């Protein structure tokens, strides 16, 4: 149906809802990157000496590296000297002691985003939030309640000051400062992020969540998240992100590290909705993220669930190193691209321990003129006897101008392991749409129901309230795709 494509276009071309900008006075280090900038970041954050050394070491490594070009992306060269590496709302210079001291404009920003920081405005005790605004964490809720059971949940800046021994022990232990170009850069200049420590045997009593917001112009956001689940503990964590609508591209190069000790379980979910640029591909966030979890102890479990709808370019591969025997890693992903968005995303499952298991479920949805690639690596080391992996990569195409690509790499070095890979590519069927319409549904509802059905396996892994958010987000991202 020719008009079907027009309608698809119409449904996917919906405006970005979070594109507003907040009028907050900020304190920004001028654009440019050299050792002095790094020293200044470290000084402003009041960091211990070891951190500055760590940063400078990462920076000197970064200088010797080149931006990777293997991804299936069309990327203009980035001028790293044109970016400002630190921006903080002025009012946050002295970190507010409590929410009453937080700039009302910032509180209002989060409220508009649907993330009220005042605890009484949230559902009682369900989710604790760390709010990161540009380069700094502006508020963390429910800290006291979490402290009662020994869970540490704070900004990473605070952790460096209050728990330096934990930070020194674990920071960079999963993603070393030399890991890759963007991770090295992050190690040198990261400004804030969240820190979680769950003590042995503790089941974290609520969902933890970080909400990232880029507001300032010409600023990169380089956050660092570190989650440690000690023996026999459990934590579920969610990350959300948005940015104002701007014509220039902004860089977001984050690193997330997770460590799961013996019998511990960590669930990490992301709903990524950075500004994707307009329909002509102007503006939008470059989302270059390194996320990796280490199943360090026996029987540990790490699961990544991601719903990626935003960003002009996404480059990320949340991975799990299955070191402990019987450890389990899972990756569930929905990546939706529209207009001229590009995504190259997937996962790496590195099996080192015996009887380790991993599952990969990836659902790509491409609309408009976008390009969506799945890239995955399953590596089974010699000693990882009886390891098992199941991978399923599905691609859904909406319209006839988009592309989907799958790059699965499998490397098995023993004979007792089992690796399965399944992949499908389908077009959203005109027949499916017509079938729904013949039953009385509008075309928009039809597409949204079909896509949500397609993603169901992944969405059902999200905590209830976020599954609803993710579903709405997909529906929004789809608007204008149907023609």
């Amino acid at each position, binding site marked *: 149906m020719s008009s079907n494509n027009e309608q698809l276009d119409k449904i996917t071309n919906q405006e970005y809802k979070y594109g507003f900008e907040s009028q907050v006075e900020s304190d920004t280090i001028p654009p440019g990157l050299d050792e002095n900038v790094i020293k200044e970041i470290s000084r402003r954050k009041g960091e211990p000496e070891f951190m500055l050394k760590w940063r400078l070491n990462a920076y000197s490594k970064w200088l010797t590296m080149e931006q990777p070009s293997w991804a299936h992306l069309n990327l203009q060269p980035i001028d790293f000297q044109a970016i400002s590496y630190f921006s903080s709302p002025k009012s946050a210079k002295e970190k507010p002691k409590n929410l009453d001291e937080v700039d009302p404009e910032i509180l209002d920003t989060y409220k508009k985003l649907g993330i009220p920081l005042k605890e009484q405005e949230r559902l009682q005790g369900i989710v604790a939030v760390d709010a990161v605004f540009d380069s700094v964490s502006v508020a963390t809720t429910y800290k006291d309640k979490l402290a009662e059971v020994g869970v540490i949940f704070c900004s990473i800046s605070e952790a460096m000051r209050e728990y330096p021994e934990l930070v020194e022990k674990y920071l960079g232990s999963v993603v070393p400062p030399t890991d890759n170009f963007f991770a090295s850069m992050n190690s040198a200049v990261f400004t804030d992020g969240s820190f979680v420590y769950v003590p042995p045997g503790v089941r974290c009593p609520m969902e933890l969540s970080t909400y990232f917001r880029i507001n300032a112009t010409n600023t990169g956001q380089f956050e660092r998240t570190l989650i440690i689940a000690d023996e026999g503990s459990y934590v579920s964590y969610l990350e959300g992100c948005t940015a104002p609508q701007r014509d220039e591209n902004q860089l977001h190069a984050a690193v997330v590290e997770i460590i799961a000790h013996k019998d511990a379980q960590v669930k990490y979910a992301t709903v990524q909705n950075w500004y994707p640029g307009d329909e002509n591909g102007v503006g939008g966030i470059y989302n270059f993220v390194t996320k990796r979890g280490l199943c360090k102890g026996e029987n540990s479990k790490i699961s990544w669930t991601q719903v990626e709808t935003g960003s002009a370019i996404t480059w990320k591969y949340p991975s799990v190193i299955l070191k402990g025997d019987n450890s389990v890693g899972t990756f569930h992903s929905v990546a939706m691209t529209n207009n001229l968005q590009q995504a190259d995303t997937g996962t790496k499952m590195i099996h080192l321990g015996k009887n380790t298991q991993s599952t990969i479920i990836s659902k790509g949805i491409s609309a408009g003129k976008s390009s969506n690639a799945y890239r995955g690596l399953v590596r089974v080391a010699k000693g990882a006897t009886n390891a098992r992996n199941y991978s399923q990569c599905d691609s859904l195409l909406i319209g006839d101008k988009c592309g989907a690509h799958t790059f699965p790499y499998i490397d098995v070095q023993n004979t007792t392991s089992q690796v399965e890979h399944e992949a499908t590519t389908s077009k959203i069927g005109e027949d499916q749409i017509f079938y729904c*319409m*013949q*039953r*009385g*549904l*509008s075309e928009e509802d039809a597409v949204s*129901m079909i896509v*949500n*059905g397609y993603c169901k396996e992944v969405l059902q892994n999200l905590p209830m309230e976020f599954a609803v958010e993710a579903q709405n987000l997909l529906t929004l991202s789809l608007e204008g795709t149907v023609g």
Partner: protein
Amino acid sequence: MLKIENLHAAVEGKTILKGLNLTVNAGEVHAIMGPNGAGKSTLANVIAGHDNYEVTDGAIYYEGNDIIEMAPENRARNGIFLAFQYPVEIPGLNNTYFLRAALNEKKKFLGEPEVDAADFLVIAREKMKLVEMKKELLRRPVNSGFSGGEKKRNEIFQMAVLEPKLAVLDETDSGLDIDALRIVSKGVNALKRPDNATIVVTHYQRLLDYIVPDFVHVLYDGKIIHSGGKELALELEEKGYDWLINK
């Protein structure tokens, strides 16, 4: 209820229907028969408003209004139902959720109160009995992993829930074994009322043993070339179509 006049329709530039006339009144069952490629499925899809089919001439009056320009979802909400020859699978989309959404769209359109999940389940359970459908199919994704027979039963089940005024059954008998055929036909017959009408598109007389038509039409080369009562179907079974085509 339905009056089709001089209907011409094309698919991808190729004219399939070439001046078709048909009148269907409330309370009637019409069978459309004819050889492969005569335009039977095209007729069904054009009535439902499928975008792939371009109406190049003529008119389709439904309850007195020409519906050629009407969007397919509005035709559906107005009471036109197409039971598909090949019901599509929609993985992950719950059958119950889908059908309740469809019913509520129709209710909204007609200005009636919407049905909540609990009430819908009561309606659904009742209507499932008509086609002896297994309860578990309600919880499964739309047609996903259904057998051929289950898909056709699901179509008639949807028809029972949506209560159309005009139902078009497109080769509903294809792929059904004799037991399933009997069950599906029983469902269709049970839904028959003085204020609704059914058009049965079929290849075989077999279906008409169960769904007894008031009129039988022979469609050939885009036109209805012969019409008669239910006995015409038997005659066609015996003699084929050639005697009409060569007449």
